[in-house]
C-alpha cells in the first residue's frame, strides 16, 4: 500500500495535476453556486475537456470540480437559502440563520473548515479501508435501504422543533406525494399527471427546492417587511465578512467533525445513499447528542448544526468513490457521470483496479486530499468578499433571488409550466411557513421518494408480498429498531417535559 500511496503522490503532485485540481476547484465553486447547476452538471461539462488528458489527470480535474461544486452549493445555501443540490439542503438549516444574524463570513468559514476536515478524514478512511468497505457496501440489500430511508425520514421529523413532530410528518408525506408524480419507474404508467404532459417526467428536485427554500424565503421577507419582530438587523461589512472562529466554536467543531465524518463516509459508501442522507442523518444525530441548551439553538444558527452536515456531505463525497473505484458501482449521480468518463478513458473499475491501474486508483485518492487543501486555500480568502452578497439591499437581493430561482428552472426545462408550478409551490410553502410547518422534511422526503418506492418494490416482490422482510435480516431489524427507539424517545421526552 505504501508503494501505491507513493505512486499516487508522485502522479498527483505533478505541476499539471496540481494545476488541474486548482482549475477544477475554482470552476466547480462558481458552477456550484449557480442554482440548478450542481456537481453532476459541472462534471458533465468537463468531460469533453478531459478527453485530451491521460486518465489520471482527467479524473483529478473532475474530482476537483466535484469538491468545488459541493462547496459552491453550500455557499448559496448559507447566503441565499438556495441549495442547488440535495447534499447541501441540511447546510441551510443553520447556515442561513447564522448568515441572517450578520455572521455570513463565519458561517462560510465554518462550512469551509468542516468540509476540509470531513474530506481529509474521509480521505484517510478511504486510504485504509476502501477495499474492505466495498464488501460492506455489497452487503446492503433493498430492505436495508428501505429501512435506512425510513430512519432518515423519521429522524428529521423527530428532531424538528419542539411540538412539531406531526407537522413534520405531514410534510414528509407531502414530499413523498410530490415525488410520486410522473411515470412509475418500472411500468412507465403515469400517475397524478391529470393528462398534463409536462408532469410525465415528474417534478424536478431543483424546482421543489427553489420553490420551498429560495423563492418562499424571498416572498416571506417581502411579506414580513413591516413586521417589527423580523426587522432586518443592521450589520457592518466587517462583521459580515469576518471569518474568525472563536475558541468556543472551535471546541464545538472538534467534537462534531469526527462523528459526522464517520457517518458521512459510511453512508457515502452505500451505493445510492450519498451525500443527502449522510448530511441529514449527521444533522439529526448531532442534534440528539448535544446538550439541551445547544439543542435549542438548532435551526437558529447553531455551530454544531452547520458543521455536522457540511462535514458529512464532503465525507460522503469521498465515500461514494469506494463503490465506484472498487466495484464499478456508482454511489451517486455524480459518480455515475465520472464512471462514464472512466470507461471512456478505457479504464474498467472493479476490485482489480488498484492492481491493474494503481496510478489511477491512488492518484485519485491522493488528489482528493490535495483538492481539499487547494479548495481551502482558494476559498478562505474569498469568503469576506462572497459574504458581502448579504450587504446588498433587500430591494435588489429579493428580485435577484427570484431571478436565480427562475433561471435555475428555465435552463433545465425550457418550459413555462415548470415556472408556474414553482411559483404555485412557493406560494403554498410561504403560507405553510407562516404557520411553522417545516420545509426540510418535505425536501428530504421528496429526494428519497423514488428510491424508497424502488426499494420497497424490490423487497415486497422478493418476499412475495410479505412484510417479513422488515425483520428477516438482522441489519434491517437493527435499523428499524433504531427508528422505533428514536420515535419512542421523542414521545417520552415530550411527555416528560409536559409533566
Amino acid at each position, binding site marked *: 500500500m505504501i508503494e501505491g500511496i507513493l505512486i499516487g503522490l508522485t502522479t498527483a503532485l505533478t505541476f499539471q495535476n496540481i494545476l488541474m485540481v486548482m482549475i477544477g476547484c475554482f470552476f466547480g465553486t462558481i458552477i456550484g453556486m449557480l442554482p440548478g447547476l450542481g456537481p453532476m452538471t459541472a462534471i458533465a461539462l468537463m468531460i469533453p475537456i478531459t478527453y485530451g488528458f491521460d486518465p489520471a489527470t482527467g479524473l483529478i480535474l473532475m474530482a476537483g470540480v466535484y469538491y468545488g461544486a459541493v462547496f459552491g452549493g453550500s455557499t448559496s445555501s448559507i447566503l441565499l437559502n438556495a441549495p442547488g443540490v440535495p447534499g447541501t439542503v441540511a447546510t441551510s438549516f443553520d447556515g442561513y440563520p447564522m448568515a441572517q444574524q450578520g455572521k455570513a463570513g463565519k458561517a462560510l468559514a465554518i462550512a469551509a473548515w468542516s468540509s476540509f476536515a470531513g474530506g481529509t478524514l474521509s480521505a484517510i478512511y478511504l486510504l485504509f479501508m476502501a477495499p474492505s468497505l466495498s464488501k460492506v457496501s455489497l452487503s446492503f440489500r433493498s430492505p436495508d435501504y428501505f429501512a435506512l430511508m425510513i430512519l432518515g425520514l423519521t429522524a428529521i421529523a423527530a428532531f424538528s422543533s419542539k411540538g412539531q413532530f406531526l407537522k413534520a410528518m405531514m410534510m414528509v408525506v407531502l414530499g413523498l406525494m410530490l415525488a410520486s408524480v410522473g411515470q*412509475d419507474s418500472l411500468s412507465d404508467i403515469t400517475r397524478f399527471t391529470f393528462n398534463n404532459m409536462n408532469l410525465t417526467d415528474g417534478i424536478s428536485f431543483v424546482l421543489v427546492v427553489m420553490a420551498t427554500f429560495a423563492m418562499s424565503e424571498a416572498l416571506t421577507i*417581502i411579506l414580513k417587511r413591516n413586521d417589527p419582530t423580523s426587522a432586518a438587523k443592521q450589520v457592518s461589512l466587517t462583521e459580515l465578512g469576518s471569518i474568525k472562529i472563536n475558541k468556543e466554536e472551535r471546541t464545538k467543531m472538534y467534537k462534531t467533525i469526527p462523528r459526522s465524518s464517520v457517518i458521512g463516509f459510511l453512508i457515502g459508501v452505500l451505493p445510492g445513499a450519498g451525500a443527502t442522507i449522510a448530511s441529514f442523518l449527521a444533522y439529526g444525530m448531532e442534534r440528539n447528542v448535544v446538550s439541551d441548551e445547544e439543542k435549542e439553538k438548532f435551526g437558529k444558527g447553531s455551530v454544531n448544526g452547520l458543521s455536522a452536515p457540511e462535514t458529512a456531505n464532503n465525507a460522503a463525497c469521498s465515500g461514494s468513490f469506494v463503490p465506484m473505484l472498487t466495484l464499478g458501482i456508482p454511489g451517486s449521480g455524480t459518480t455515475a457521470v465520472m464512471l462514464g468518463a472512466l470507461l471512456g478513458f478505457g479504464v474498467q473499475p472493479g476490485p482489480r483496479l488498484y492492481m491493474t491501474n494503481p496510478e489511477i486508483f491512488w492518484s485519485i485518492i491522493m488528489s482528493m486530499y490535495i483538492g481539499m487543501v487547494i479548495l481551502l486555500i482558494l476559498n478562505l480568502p474569498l469568503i469576506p468578499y462572497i459574504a458581502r452578497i448579504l450587504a446588498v439591499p433587500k430591494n435588489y437581493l429579493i428580485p435577484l433571488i427570484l431571478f436565480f430561482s427562475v433561471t435555475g428552472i428555465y435552463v433545465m426545462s425550457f418550459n413555462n409550466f415548470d415556472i408556474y408550478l414553482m411559483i404555485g409551490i412557493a406560494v403554498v410553502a410561504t403560507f405553510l411557513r407562516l404557520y411553522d410547518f417545516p420545509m426540510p422534511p418535505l425536501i428530504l422526503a421528496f429526494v428519497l421518494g423514488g428510491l424508497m418506492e424502488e426499494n420497497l418494490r424490490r423487497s415486497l416482490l422478493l418476499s412475495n408480498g410479505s412484510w417479513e422482510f422488515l425483520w428477516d435480516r438482522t441489519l434491517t431489524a437493527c435499523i428499524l429498531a433504531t427508528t422505533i427507539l428514536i420515535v419512542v424517545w421523542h414521545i417520552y421526552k415530550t411527555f416528560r417535559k409536559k409533566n
Partner: protein
Amino acid sequence: MNINTTKIISLLFFIFSAFYLYTAYQIQVFAFDENAPFNARTFPIYLGYAGLFFSGLKLILPDPNTIKVEHKSLEYKKTGILILIAIIYGATILKVGYFLTTSLFLFASYYFLGERRWILMFLLSFPFVAVFMYLLHGILDIYLRDPFLQSIGVMG
C-alpha cells in the same frame, strides 16, 4: 371548539390526502400486475393513508403551540405584485426570450419594491443579465433560447 389556522391547514391536508388516495386507487395498472405484491398504485395508496393518519391526528389532538400570525402587518399587496410579475415573466420568457424578459422582470421588481435609483436599477438589470447570459451561454455553453436577440442578429 376553538379552531385555529393550523387545524384548518390540517383539515385541508386531510381532504387533499383523501383526494390523493382516491386518485391513487384510480391509477390504471396492467392486467397482469393487478394482483402483484407491488404495482404502480401500491406506494401512493400507502402514502394516501399515511396522509390521512397524520393530518387526522393533528386535527384530533390538542395543539398547545398555537401560532398567531399578525395579518395586518403583512405586506400582501407587494408580495402579490411580485408574484404577478413572476407569472408574467414565466409566461413571456419563451416567446420573447431570456435577455429582455429577465431584464424587465428585474427592473420591474426593483421598482415595485420601492427602489428609485434609476441608474443602479438599470445596471443591475440589463447589463447584469447580459453578463450572466454570457457566462451561461458563451462560457459554459448552456443553451438559452432567445428569439428577441436572434431577431436583432445578436445571437446565432
